[in-house]
């Protein structure tokens, strides 16, 4: 016997309240967690969620972390609406970074204004290619993109490890697995003196705008939405399921690839093994937390960025383990999905 039954009219208001419920539940469970670890609860919260925002520098760091999350999540959200689950954005980010990094390394010593744009284009192509492989596997062999995208993200990390340990290793890098530090012409220019905020911000800004319009107005988006809500209706209307798969996976790979370039030509400044603290995975949560809506994703991106910063602060000030960031991310997704279950369903009342 099923304990839940679908609600005839799931509430729209609740759909948008769910992220707030999830945040509240995460904070509540978080307090319990701090308490069991023997940390003062209020101080812990202060360190985690307030302290990172007490300085201007903190806000600039928030922006730096939010940008890639928002950019990747915009691309992922489109696929999620069509129920095409790309969970390998991390791999697409890495391949984008590799392509962009390749441009930076081959143009080393040159000084030209086209280098950064070329890196962005190369990164977009790299990410799109890494998204195209699962699309091909799905449309030709019906291989689940959920599995192939995830597996390909491991392949991507291994390729990155090979490149920075081998061909692209910095000869003067004391054998560390990293490339040369990129020159200024291969880096985004800094926007705010004394911070790391750079011009890649405008890429994210433009992407938010474009995706907002795309989601609200385009016929392609309508086809994607129908494919996710009622696959049979999409088939009936003669919308191409294959086209949707290609579009969603290539598009989400593309945004992730650009985000990868944003990291290596921004805060990281080279290719190394730590170019992303799991942005590709965290962006999945951002997309859902933002209700797959272009503007919702912006808010969710900032929240997720704050969790990253808070996690770092908690490691420094409270001697908490690195895993604390992952725990908060995980709880957020868990409570969000949990809320969604109860928005779409209700407890079956036994007669």
């Amino acid at each position, binding site marked *: 016997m099923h304990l839940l039954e679908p609600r005839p009219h799931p509430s729209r208001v609740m759909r948008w309240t769910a992220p707030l419920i999830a945040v509240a539940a995460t904070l509540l469970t978080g307090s319990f967690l701090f308490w069991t670890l023997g940390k003062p609860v209020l101080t812990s919260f202060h360190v985690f969620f307030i302290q990172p925002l007490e300085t201007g520098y903190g806000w600039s760091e928030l922006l730096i972390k939010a940008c890639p999350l928002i950019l990747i999540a915009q691309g992922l959200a489109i696929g999620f609406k069509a129920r095409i689950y790309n969970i390998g954005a991390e791999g697409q980010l890495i391949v984008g970074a590799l392509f962009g990094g390749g441009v930076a390394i081959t143009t080393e010593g040159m000084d030209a204004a086209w280098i950064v744009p070329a890196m962005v284009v190369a990164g977009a192509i790299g990410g799109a290619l890494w998204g195209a492989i699962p699309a091909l596997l799905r449309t030709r062999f019906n291989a689940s993109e959920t599995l192939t995208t995830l597996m390909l993200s491991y392949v991507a990390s291994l390729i990155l490890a090979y490149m920075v340990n081998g061909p692209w290793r910095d000869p003067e890098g004391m054998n560390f697995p990293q490339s040369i530090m990129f020159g200024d012409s291969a880096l985004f220019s800094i926007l705010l003196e004394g911070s790391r905020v750079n011009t890649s911000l405008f890429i994210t800004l433009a992407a938010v705008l474009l995706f907002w319009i795309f989601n609200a107005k385009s*016929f392609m988006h309508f086809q994607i939405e129908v494919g996710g809500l009622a696959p049979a209706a999409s088939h009936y209307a003669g919308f191409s399921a294959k086209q949707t798969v290609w579009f969603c996976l290539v598009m989400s790979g593309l945004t992730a690839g650009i985000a990868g370039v944003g990291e290596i030509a921004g805060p990281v400044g080279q290719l190394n093994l730590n170019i992303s603290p799991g942005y590709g995975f965290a962006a999945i949560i951002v997309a859902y937390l933002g209700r797959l809506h272009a503007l919702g994703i912006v808010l969710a991106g900032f929240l997720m960025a704050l969790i990253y910063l808070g996690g770092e602060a908690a490691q420094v000030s409270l001697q908490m383990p690195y895993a604390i960031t992952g725990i908060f991310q995980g709880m957020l997704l868990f409570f969000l999905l949990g809320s969604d279950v109860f928005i779409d369903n209700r407890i079956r009342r036994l007669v």
Partner: protein
Amino acid sequence: MSHTVPRLELIGITKRYPTIVANEDVSLTVLPGEIHAVLGENGAGKSTLMKIIYGAVKADAGTVLLDGHEVNIANPAQARRLGIGMVFQHFSLFETLTVAENIALVLDEPFDLPALATRVKEVSEHYGLPLDPNRMVHSLSVGERQRVEIVRCLLQKPKLLILDEPTSVLTPQAVVKLFETLRQLASEGVSILYISHKLHEIQSLCDHATILRNGKVTGKAVPREETPGSLARMMIGRELPVCEAPIYEGEHRPVLTVEGLTLEPTSPFGTALKDISLTVNAGEILGIAGISGNGQAELLLALSGEVTVEKETIRLDGKPIGHLNSGQRRNRGIVYVPEERLGRGAVPPLSLSHNALLTAHRQGMKNWGLVRYGKARDYADECVNRFDVRGADASTNARSLSGGNLQKFIVGREIMLKPEVMIVAQPTWGVDVGASAILRQALLDLSRTGVAILVVSEELEELFEIADRIAVLAQGRLSPAQPRAELNAEKVGLQMAGLFDHADDGRTAASMELNNASA
């Protein structure tokens, strides 16, 4: 009558749902051995009332008396223990299990499979419903599956048997057989509650009838003493609407032709199509009769383009289109109304303007890849007005429409596309009498403007009302289409059983087969 204790007595049954009163102060009495009809349109509250008796739904108020004792039926298992059996309209059988295994699954007592198989065989033969207990359910026809459901109830020796629209899946001949069985059961003292909206069935089978409309009892009658007109008035509050089929005076040219279409089934328990040929002419409605599961789904997929086939097998105006998908065929003027309205013909959580966009985006609703939502809204509003879609506007979600109103919207949307060919599956399935009449008339009117229409329907009466020619699809084969005037229910019923008038002596062969079938 006062000496007999009624088998079942309902007093003042009321059931309210948040938005609708399903039953209001419903009372009825069924005597032992009586066949009692519950007559009403879709949505009149028949099913809710039966579910209350069967313990699947709890009433808000009212009393249920069984053999004079008040009972409080908490769930279907208790109902079965009290001797109430129910045969649902939609079967709940496992296709990968045998007949006996399926029956064993719902018995509330421990069982011994071989002994059960023997009992199944005995009971089924006693009531003229022969069944092989060891056959897999997926190999059974729909009629045979219904026998499994009935035998499953009979094994528990019910005192009261409820049947919900049992004939919708049967050929006319199988209906006759079923009625014989029901009369035999009644003669043994079993009371039968028979739910239907088909007047002639109720007149030929039932002793008494209770008529429901909008959840209330609007009449009690002895059906044999009534006319279809008087029953209809009680059921829908007015005369049965009749469709008008004007004569088509345009050119009779073939528009859609299918030749030698053979198709493997698309699902594990589907039906293969074997060498199907048909022609739909401009200005006519071709009816495809037959019970669902005989290749209807496959034929519709192939015609609509959701499954593509050999290029030359399907032609539109002489040009091959078999290889084109549904979108490409729509571009050429073939529109389609599918059987499943929610989820295929319409996207449930989206508004009617979005649902207009689904197929009408070709009507200038796109500009540089962007949607002109204003146009979609206008289209949806026009469709709502022209086709009398009640309680809706362009912003209403498809899923909040009733079945009949949603069907009016979908049919209207497709008609407004100004098609050359229109394919319609089960146009009035689950639709109330009033809306059905509007839909049938809309199809007739459209055909008389020179559109070629193909209607697949399980309802024979419907096809006799609107189709100019009728062909029968049975076991994946299609009989040659014959003008309606040359057919009657009995002839169509024979073809449904899979016997076509191929040979010259077809008639004798057919009647011999019928004798065998009923023996």
